């Protein structure tokens, strides 16, 4: 401290009386950035990092909120391995992700390429694809429940007229998940389109000019110019969409409540039920930790694959 005040000699000559204010004067410029990040850091610590550690702690306890947490070792995790409903929820989540993630990416890319061309009214078309992005998942769920309604829904009305329906969309296990998947596509396509559009617009036209000089056809231009240059974007969208679909909750909670039966119960749904319906805080936290590990694991694998393929380009 002593040599620090030497670098700011004026600090000592000032008339401030208390040692604290003198110390503050001489260290002000060093402390400023810490003060600027302090509010965020404090909030993150209390409401994100501490809860994560807390979840790990609760996950090795038996706790119903009203009693005292009782140490349970790995019991909750062992129970999870043998819990068929957990595996069903995990399976549902994987099916849901596998059905939604690649589809939204492909459609989003197609839309971005199409709407990157000079087309009449393309700004309006883009807006129409983009609109669902601002609609809350609860409102989406309500609208979808109405469209897919067994008796009065417009989708069944159209199917009836076409002579194929009606389909019991939300009341049978077979069709409930497909309804949710279709709704998710509606929600997510615009997001992927916008990200891809921005990436396409950042590709310099000179690449395409060079490809044409080399005699590349349009499919070849896509394959050898566009697609490789979009790889980082695809990678990012893949991660974002997988994380999104692994933590999907709002839409399904409101649309089907996880039913009929267990057919649309996802991991987060199951966690929510364990914690807030059955008061099994330890078990719910253990599942939360497992979900976090899955998301982390997937991101790391993606990261590795992406880095390895980039070395060959």
């Amino acid at each position: 401290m002593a040599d620090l005040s030497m670098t700011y000699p004026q600090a000592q000559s000032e008339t401030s009386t208390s040692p604290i204010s003198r110390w503050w004067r001489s260290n002000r410029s060093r402390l400023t950035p810490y003060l600027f990040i302090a509010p965020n850091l404090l909030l993150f610590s209390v409401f994100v990092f501490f809860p994560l550690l807390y979840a790990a702690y609760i996950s090795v306890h038996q706790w119903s909120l009203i009693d005292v947490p009782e140490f349970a070792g790995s019991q909750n995790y062992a129970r999870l391995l043998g819990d068929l409903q957990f595996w069903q929820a995990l399976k549902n989540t994987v099916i849901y992700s596998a059905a939604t993630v690649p589809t939204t990416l492909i459609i989003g890319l197609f839309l971005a390429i199409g709407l990157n061309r000079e087309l009449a009214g393309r700004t309006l078309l883009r807006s129409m694809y983009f609109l669902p992005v601002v609609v809350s998942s609860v409102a989406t769920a309500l609208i979808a429940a109405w469209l897919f309604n067994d008796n009065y829904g417009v989708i069944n009305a159209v199917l009836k007229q076409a002579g194929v329906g009606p389909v019991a969309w939300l009341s049978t296990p077979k069709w409930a998940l497909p309804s949710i998947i279709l709704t998710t596509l509606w929600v997510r396509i615009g997001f992927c389109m916008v990200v891809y559009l921005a990436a396409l617009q950042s590709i310099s036209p000179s690449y395409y000019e060079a490809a044409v000089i080399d005699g590349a056809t349009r499919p070849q231009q896509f394959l050898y110019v566009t697609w490789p240059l979009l790889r980082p974007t695809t990678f990012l969208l893949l991660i974002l969409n997988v994380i999104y679909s692994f933590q999907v909750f709002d839409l399904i909670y409101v649309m089907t409540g996880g039913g009929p039966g267990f057919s649309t119960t996802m991991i987060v749904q199951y966690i929510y039920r364990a914690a807030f319906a059955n008061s099994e805080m330890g078990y719910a936290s253990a599942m939360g930790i497992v979900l976090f590990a899955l998301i982390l694991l997937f991101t790391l694998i993606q990261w590795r694959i992406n880095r390895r393929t980039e070395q060959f380009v």
Partner: protein
Amino acid sequence: MMVTTTSPMRRRFETAGLWLLLAVGAAVMLFPIYWMLVTAIRPRDEVFSGDVSLLPSGWVWSNFVDALNHMPFLSWAWNSTVIAVVAVVITVSINLLCGYAFAKFRFAGRDILFIAVLSALMIPIQVIIVPLFLVVSDLGLLNNYWGVILPRAAEAFGIFMVRQFMVSIPDELLEAARLDGASELTIFLKVVVPLSKPVIAVLIIFTFMWRWNDFVLPLVILTDQEMYTVQVGLNLLKGQYNTEWTELMAIALLSLVPMLVIFVFFQRQLIQGIAGTGLK
């Protein structure tokens, strides 16, 4: 824009076909919103007549009044507005300060702390919802606006966006102000903030949208019906009035009004914010 070598005639056909495909797709995308509007304003018995015509036979605006009389939507909207507005003020202020520090200061531990911020992006609220509920409960903030505002006030995405933006502010401007004897806070308020208007606009819009549309945290924290937000209220209605589709769609439409206003007037900022996540 791809450069092509095909004949102009074939290219025109291709473009027309592509346009048609995109236009049909766009109509399909818009249809659910349109159908919500049509269901909300059509005569009630027409909704359940089984025959679904694309246009309503009449515009019954009183459906909205009926819905508002039956459901405490206005009180939910008030709660949502208070939460979203206070959250915007807090989140934008502290994210700007934080992003500025990461962009323009060198300090011990900066990189580690920035990685910590980024790692918060990796922890979805659904994963920590149980302990988060317990923390908020221990702080005595259940059924309190602060119980949903504070846990989400620090926004990693916002800090990241602000930092990316502020890195390009010239250091000379800040140095000049320092030589003039301005305090760090004055520099931030008088030099940095005015230069950051574009990123502030994006941040305000996104924070408002996120907080207005939030569901799982308010669902867990605000259990008292008087404290319900719009989204939690809509969920309640879905359970209670699951056959009153006219009124449900009317309320759902009203819940979308702030978002539709944002969509119409600030689409550029929305696109900027989303495209920013993909490019950086």
